[in-house]
């Protein structure tokens, strides 16, 4: 005969009223502070989180810890001198910021850059897209407890960084390109090394894919977490992989092709669910397309000049500067007064790694920008973060924060 107390415990099991056997503890909402300096909060973002148990009731991202006065600084230097500031917007893909800014200035000044320069810009931008996506995908793995994918990603990233160093002379702060084209041509033997790097990266991306995409633990943490509908995503101004993960195929490279993207054969991957897993898949897929674009561009790149032959816009060649009076004057005027950009305004956008990087420039006709508005993709996406995580567990904040890939530099200007 069973002990009556045992049965009582059994009956109280699944059928008992919720919480009947739980000790009543006095609880209250807990306010916790993640960041600004927290290993999982990339950059320096602080999020004030109100918790009920482990559930996030309210999350308030607070930004500005990395504000450097980007716009004010740009308004006080010449157009070309803005370049180093643009590097520091998205420091994971600096070339895309450089080229995006230059593209807007050229549109405002009505300059068409040589074909070879357009190809170099496509190559540089796509290399840095691979760089950016590898960093993002690797760190998602890392923060969900998988260290190996992160090491693979960083290995590939370092190789690309080496190629970028050979091209621009800097690992992170590239300041590459000038108004009117590119300031130096591809280095000797660079093409072959890039192709080998891409081969290696392809292998590494395959490894990451194998380790993560079908991994039960990884999928459970990612699928159905951080969901946002396509309407909400547009409302908040999501662009790039985060918007495409919700099913909207908007990519500036396809919608408004710039440089030579219209000659490249590539697809824009589109997701369905708008959750973390889809955002991860978008990036993984784009890595393959970017690789293909770089290969196509390296195959088709024509010989020729890399910067416009107009001394009012581009510096004259050094023998001219040292050998002729016209060269010296052109050099002096360009350095002291800057590129003459006619008065007016323009909006121009390019597809950066995280979405539409928009520039609204106003010129008053002097050599300096009157207004440099940058529409950083991360700013809009971060403002939608509370919508994606409220009502979820605190632990879900981490993968969501990873997949939106917020970059402090561009969000906080």
């Amino acid at each position, binding site marked *: 005969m069973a002990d009556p107390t045992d049965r009582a415990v059994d009956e109280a099991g699944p059928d008992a009223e919720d919480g009947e056997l739980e000790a009543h503890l006095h609880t209250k909402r*807990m*306010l916790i502070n993640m960041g600004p300096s927290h290993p999982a909060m990339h950059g320096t973002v602080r999020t004030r989180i109100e918790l009920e148990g482990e559930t996030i009731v309210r999350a308030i991202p607070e*930004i*500005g810890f990395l*504000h450097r*006065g980007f*716009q*004010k600084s740009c308004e*006080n230097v010449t157009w070309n001198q803005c370049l180093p500031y643009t590097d520091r917007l998205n420091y994971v893909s600096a070339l895309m910021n450089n080229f995006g800014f230059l593209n807007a200035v050229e*549109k*405002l000044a*009505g300059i068409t850059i040589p074909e070879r320069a357009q190809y170099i810009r496509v190559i540089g931008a796509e290399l840095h897209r691979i760089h950016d996506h590898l960093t993002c995908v690797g760190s998602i793995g890392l923060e969900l407890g998988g260290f190996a994918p992160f090491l693979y990603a960083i290995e590939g990233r370092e190789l690309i960084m080496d190629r970028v160093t050979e091209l621009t002379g800097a690992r992170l702060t590239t300041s590459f390109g000038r108004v009117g084209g590119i300031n130096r041509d591809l280095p000797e033997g660079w093409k072959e090394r890039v192709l080998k790097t891409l081969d290696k990266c392809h292998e590494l991306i395959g490894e990451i894919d194998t380790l993560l995409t079908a991994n039960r633990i990884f999928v459970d943490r990612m699928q159905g977490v951080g969901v946002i509908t396509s*309407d*909400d995503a*547009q*409302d*908040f*101004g999501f*662009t790039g992989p985060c*918007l495409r993960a919700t099913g*909207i195929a*908007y990519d500036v490279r396809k*919608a*408004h092709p710039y440089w030579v993207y219209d000659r490249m054969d590539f697809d824009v991957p589109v997701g369905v669910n708008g959750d973390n897993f889809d955002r991860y898949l978008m990036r993984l897929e784009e890595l393959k397309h970017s690789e293909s674009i770089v290969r196509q561009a390296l195959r088709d790149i024509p010989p020729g000049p890399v910067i416009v032959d107009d001394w009012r816009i581009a510096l004259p060649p050094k023998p001219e500067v040292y050998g002729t009076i016209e060269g010296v004057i052109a050099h002096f005027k360009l350095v002291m007064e800057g590129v003459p950009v*006619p008065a*007016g*305004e*323009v*909006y121009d*956008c390019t597809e950066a790694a995280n979405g*539409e990087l*928009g520039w*609204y420039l*106003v010129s*008053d006709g002097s050599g300096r920008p*009157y*207004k440099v*508005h940058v*529409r950083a993709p991360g*700013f*809009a996406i*971060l*403002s*939608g973060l509370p*919508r994606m995580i409220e009502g979820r567990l605190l632990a879900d904040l981490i993968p969501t924060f990873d997949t939106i890939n917020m970059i402090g530099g561009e969000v*906080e*200007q």
Partner: protein
Amino acid sequence: MSAFALDRIAKVLPEALLERPVDSSGGHWGLLRAEALPAVAQLVKSDPELGFKLFLSIDAVDRLHLAENSPRFEVVYFAYSVLRNEHLRLKVRVTEERPEVPSLTSVYQGANWWERFVWDFYGIRFLGHPDLTRILMYEEFKGHPLRKDYPLRGRQPLTPERPVEDIFRGPGTSGVG
């Protein structure tokens, strides 16, 4: 930049659109009356033929040193229509004495942070915004740094530490009491 959308605005809300210039690269933009802004935003967002659902950004221009500088501020709005594959640029102008624009937060949720940004850097108030606080600068900051008359090397006074409320320090001897 969408000329089609401007045509539609001119047709449906004729008193809202003041001017519709074209910039040097062929971009159309529209100057609106400030009061009409929410109605126009609602129109361009919900009209089935326009579909400007993707809200891009807001910024302002301080026209103090430009040839034409009255009224002083210009608030610029950007949106995108996936349907029409076009950008939209709309502006409103406000004076220095009364820098007030109706908020778009009830139409686009994304306007929230950008309006805080413009308030922070230009001191333009958005009427009806749920939480119009500074976003990048700190609350005690004096002035609005992107105004053209804010000095490049402007100094700010030291601010006292903010009181911290309701800290739960946990068990133990340190910090209790």
